[in-house]
């Protein structure tokens, strides 16, 4: 009886050992293919210089894939779901990395073409928000008048929008006239025109202390001609950012 029990126990141990030995470990063909695909995605992102912009995401993608491969090799082939979860995580990390390539390329200056191994220059520093060299269209006035014409309103609106978006910007409005009339009269008319434009801007919400005016009368014509076409051009308001 005792010998029989011992025999049974031995058989049981042998069976368990045999089953454990037969259960195959390692990656299946499809898992290996998947690992290759993920590695290719990471390599593509790396080739495009992602390490300069997103070193953390690159490190996570690579190590997560390494982990998935480890699990793929160490787990039994039957543990499909467990292994899949690791490969899913690796694929997600690689996809996230690839999604960052576009913004990264935009940030980076293009590397020099002649020297492939040369390190690409660092991304350019962001431009300061200070007012850019912006120019505005001139506005024009009727003969001997200083009121704002309808065709000038869109220009004034764009000036006002700019001033609101750039709170540090300062503006000077120049008032100009055509050559007709006395110099003294035109100096006064130019001032009225500049003041008229300034009032319009303040009504649009631009703070008056950011805008100054100056009159040049007839002294600075835009067109030196002596005809109506030239005069129409010279009766103007000019916006200068300071």
């Amino acid at each position, binding site marked *: 009886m005792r010998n029989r029990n011992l025999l049974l126990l031995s058989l049981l141990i042998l069976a368990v050992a045999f089953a454990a030995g037969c259960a195959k470990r390692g990656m299946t063909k499809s898992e290996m293919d998947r690992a290759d695909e993920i590695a290719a995605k990471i390599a593509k992102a790396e080739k495009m210089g992602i390490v300069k912009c997103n*070193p*953390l995401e*690159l*490190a*996570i993608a690579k190590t*997560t894939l*390494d*982990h998935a491969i*480890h699990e793929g090799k*160490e787990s039994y082939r039957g543990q499909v779901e467990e292994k899949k979860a690791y490969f899913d995580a690796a694929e997600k990390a690689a996809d996230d990395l690839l999604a960052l390539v576009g913004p990264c390329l935009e940030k980076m200056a293009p590397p020099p073409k002649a020297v492939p191994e040369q390190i690409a220059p660092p991304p350019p520093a962001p431009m300061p928000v200070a007012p850019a060299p912006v120019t505005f269209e001139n506005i024009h006035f009727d003969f001997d008048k200083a009121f704002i014409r309808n065709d000038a309103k869109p220009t004034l609106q764009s000036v006002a929008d700019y001033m609101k978006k750039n709170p540090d910007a300062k503006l000077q409005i120049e008032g100009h006239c055509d050559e007709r009339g006395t110099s003294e009269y035109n100096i006064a008319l130019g001032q009225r025109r500049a003041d008229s434009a300034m009032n319009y801007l303040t009504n649009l919400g631009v703070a008056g202390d950011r805008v100054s005016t100056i009159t040049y009368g007839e002294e600075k014509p835009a067109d030196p001609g002596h005809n109506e076409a030239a005069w129409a051009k010279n009766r103007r308001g000019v916006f200068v950012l300071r």
Partner: protein
Amino acid sequence: MKRLWVLLFAVVLSATLAVGCARAHKTALNNARTSLDQAKAMGVEKTAPYEYYTAESYLRIAEHEATEEGDYKGAKEFAEKSQKASAEAMKAGGGAK
């Protein structure tokens, strides 16, 4: 009686091996943590970020293997990779003082 001694020897041997394995992964994990702390203290997170984050990520995986999976061999393997990455980070970004 002889059989009992053989059995006892086998048990002791197994226990010794098991303890040895457990200590090996713990030592590797401690070494990896020390290296990463050292790298961080040198400021390589800024100067060699890729290497630093690689070390950090491998260490996290090693800890996961040890605590969640009970895979001490894997834990040791990833801890060693972490330590290597920390060393590379310190080498690459070692200029930082």
